[in-house]
């Protein structure tokens, strides 16, 4: 279901549509506040809730439902910057001060999300081992115990899965590694 339809249903009071909208964009907001602007866990959660509260209040006035993703990203960016300013953290990224410099974290997040999307195209066992090791920060021992595989083979499995992820991401982005392109 497209965002526009979800928003229309939210306006009509459909709680399941709201939940679907939150779940769909939760990764984007979390990536911006945690990864992009590196807020503390507490600040990141506050901004996360603020973004979705603002979205809920604005549901009635969003004209182009399909543009909601960009709207959410901008609100998350601005709310993260406000939070940083309130906390007294340095936000100057270069001289002269250029507001567009604060968009750099958003660009990094967009690329990272494209990698996350490519992950979904890998076999389940490769998705799981990469997610456990890199996103959940689990140890070899934990991964081995949870997945029932010898810890000694995990490094090589991660390496193979990363290589597969690179191929999947490059294919999705229309890019190809020079060495591989020359063999085709």
């Amino acid at each position, binding site marked *: 279901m497209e965002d526009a339809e979800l928003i229309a249903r939210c306006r009509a009071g459909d709680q399941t549509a709201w939940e679907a909208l939150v779940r769909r964009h*939760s990764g984007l907001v979390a990536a911006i506040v945690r990864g992009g602007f590196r807020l503390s866990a507490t600040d990141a959660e506050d901004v996360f809730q603020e973004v979705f*509260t603002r979205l809920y209040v604005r549901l009635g006035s969003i004209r182009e439902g399909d543009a909601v993703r960009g709207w959410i990203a901008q609100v998350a960016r601005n709310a993260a910057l406000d939070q940083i300013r309130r906390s007294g953290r340095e936000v100057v990224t270069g001289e002269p001060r250029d507001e567009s410099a604060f968009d750099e974290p958003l660009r990094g997040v967009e690329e990272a999300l494209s990698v996350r999307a490519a992950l979904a195209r890998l076999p389940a066992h490769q998705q799981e081992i990469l997610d456990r090791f890199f996103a959940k920060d689990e140890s070899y021992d934990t991964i081995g115990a949870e997945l029932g595989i010898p810890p000694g083979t995990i490094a090589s499995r991660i390496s193979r899965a990363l290589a597969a992820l690179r191929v999947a991401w490059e294919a999705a982005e229309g890019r190809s590694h020079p060495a591989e392109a020359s063999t085709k």
Partner: protein
Amino acid sequence: MDDPVLPEAALADALKLTANAPAAWIEAAVLIPSMLGDLSAIERLASDAQFRARFHEDPNDAVAAAGLIPSAPLLVALRERLDG
């Protein structure tokens, strides 16, 4: 020229950066409509000039004086409605 590929270390960083939001965050966001209640109450407050002036001076006090609990979602919602 742009680097045509992302090194695998960058892919790993991307996975770290896009780890799923904690389930508790999502569950709390899902509850925002019930936390805020009827949005028409927010609209009524937002259209009240006296409330707006009081809110800009002291948001918590203004909301409490209106007979509401100044929860974080309500304060954010009012700011969005008044300043957005």
